[in-house]
């Protein structure tokens, strides 16, 4: 094999200029493909991360029927079985209980319908860094009776830290829910809707408000390995009685985002396809030229005893060298660019930013350094290179020695 590697490498550099031009086209295409894919995947990861952290978690457990009818009457009581299942699942890193409902919020002459989320302050902070989003005031603790309010809502209701907000709504099983809560802090999220309509309460205070003691509406789960999400869903579903519980992955709870990502991803794949065609023709042209101009040499090699299969190996190695050199150089050149954009994400402005905010997502495009991107692009370009060399390989398998010798 060493002999073939040596021959293939030297053959590659017989016509330096041509090889460099072909390599440059492969390098540029890989650079472009990797950067494009990295920005896309980074943006998707950011979108998913935001959605998962601020909304659903990777997986949510509800009482059966809650997702279709999100009412306190479809809440569930904290229980040991659930705690033990979650505690024993090695892929689950965090289980965040929440109680969510809608009430009227009032202060002075102003009233507004708001979403109330009762949270475990420590776990919620671990999940989404809620305490870091505070503009004014301080973060609450589990036994606090204070609330956190969005900055736009606080402006609308003319509330400052220390002021009192009245919440009025329907509690568990039709009871009246009413309470006065001091504003402990004012937060700001990238999503305007959250800033104008969201109130956080410590879980215990929230359960007291809705007279739903020791009950949750959802349990959001964070995972050590998100790629093992479906396995975790299957495990939990098989361990829980599905007549009483529903275990849902984030994709099922956030279909709009899933579709948005799928649509955008399809556009990206088409662009990649165009790039791949460019790569394929560049490699095809070079390998074809390298084959045709060496017909006589090939015929001599076969005449003196080189098997055609070995000749095919030789040509394949030449193609692989172009592919590997192009892919590795492209990736090496892309790395500093991607690291920069990972650390300094592109900030989106204008209409596009609004679209991001609609989904509660920070309008940034960070690059992703997920090794999968590089591996996929690398393997794809190598496969394309090999496919592009099929015709020359077929020629080598079939060419007539005598005709080629006469040239």
């Amino acid at each position, binding site marked *: 094999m060493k*002999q073939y590697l040596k*021959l293939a490498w*030297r*053959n590659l550099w*017989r016509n330096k200029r041509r090889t460099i031009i072909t390599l440059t086209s492969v390098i540029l295409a890989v650079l472009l493909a990797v950067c494009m894919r990295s920005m896309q995947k980074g943006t998707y990861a950011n979108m998913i991360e935001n959605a998962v952290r601020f909304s659903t978690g990777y997986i949510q457990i509800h009482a059966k029927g809650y997702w279709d009818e999100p009412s306190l009457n479809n809440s569930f009581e904290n229980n040991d079985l659930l705690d033990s299942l979650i505690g024993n699942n090695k892929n689950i890193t965090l289980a965040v209980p929440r109680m969510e409902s809608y009430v009227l919020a009032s202060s002075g002459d102003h009233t507004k319908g708001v979403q109330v989320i009762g949270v475990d302050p420590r776990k919620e902070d671990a999940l989404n860094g809620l305490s870091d989003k505070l503009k004014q005031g301080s973060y609450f603790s589990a036994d606090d009776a204070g609330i956190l309010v969005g900055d736009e809502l606080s402006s609308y209701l003319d509330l400052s830290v220390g002021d009192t907000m009245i919440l009025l709504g329907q509690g568990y099983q039709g009871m009246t829910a009413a309470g006065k809560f001091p504003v402990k802090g004012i937060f700001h999220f990238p999503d305007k809707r959250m800033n104008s309509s969201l109130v956080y309460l410590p879980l215990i205070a929230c359960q007291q408000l809705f007279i739903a003691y020791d009950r949750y509406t959802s349990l959001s789960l964070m995972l050590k390995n998100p790629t093992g999400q479906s396995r975790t869903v299957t495990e939990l579903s098989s361990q829980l009685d599905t007549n009483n519980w529903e275990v849902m992955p984030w994709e099922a709870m956030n279909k709009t985002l899933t579709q948005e990502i799928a649509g955008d991803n399809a556009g990206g794949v088409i662009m990649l396809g165009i790039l791949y065609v460019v790569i394929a023709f560049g490699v095809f042209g070079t390998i074809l030229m390298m084959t045709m101009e060496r017909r*006589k*040499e090939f015929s*001599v*090699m*076969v*005449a*003196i*005893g*080189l*098997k*055609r299969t*070995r000749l095919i190996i030789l040509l394949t190695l030449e193609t692989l060298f172009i592919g590997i050199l192009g892919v590795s150089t492209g990736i090496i050149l892309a790395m500093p660019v991607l690291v920069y954009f990972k650390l300094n994400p592109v900030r989106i402005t204008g209409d596009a930013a609004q679209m991001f905010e609609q989904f509660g997502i920070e309008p940034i495009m960070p690059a992703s350094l997920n090794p999968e991107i590089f591996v996929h692009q690398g393997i794809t370009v190598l496969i394309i290179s090999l496919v592009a060399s099929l015709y020359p390989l077929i020629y080598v398998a079939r060419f007539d*020695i*005598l005709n080629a*010798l006469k040239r």
Partner: protein
Amino acid sequence: MRNTMEVIELKKLHKTYEGIVPVQAVKGVDLLFGKGEFTAIVGPSGCGKTTLLNMIGGLDAPTEGQVLIEDQDISALSPAELVDFRLWNIGFVFQSYNLIPVLTVKENIAFIMELQGRNHKEINDRVAYLLDVLGMKDKMNIRPRYLSGGQQQRVAVARALASSPKFVLADEPTANLDSQSTENLLELMETMNRTEDITFLFSTHDQRVMDKAHRIVTLEDGKVVRDGKQEKVE
């Protein structure tokens, strides 16, 4: 009784190239070549010399007849078996040298032995010996394009001889060489024929080559018209 020293036997060999007008290049040739022969196949252009050599070398298949190499009918071998057969039994020297341009002199000579899978010591010893005979030790690490035509053809002969084949086929080996290079090449081929007892068959128009041949087979219009040692061929 058969001569056990016969290396090549051609039996009623015919070759017709099909086309709008079929061309009969070789017409019923019967020949025997013994071990260690140094034979020139001569004749005018188009008389079938190259076709005959190609059939002996398994590069072309006869339309009729047989090519027996040490009693093995090579016409019956598959293309893949023929490649293997050539690798182990035949050395080729081409008119235009046809060395592998990306390999050095040493690597070109070693190429066939490497294909045969011989060990490094064997290869190195043989290459060193041949380079010594060629008088080209100082050029062993340079590529063919830096050599003269004569030097390249000497390397091509060394390549053909490196694997100690049963016989060497050379198609017009001196056609592109000046008289000094021709002289040097013939001396090399004669030396190897004498010292290693390797059979040489070469087609040629070159009187200097014919003068060195032990036997001359003359072809005309695809048939053998003369076979034997001659003083001079007009």
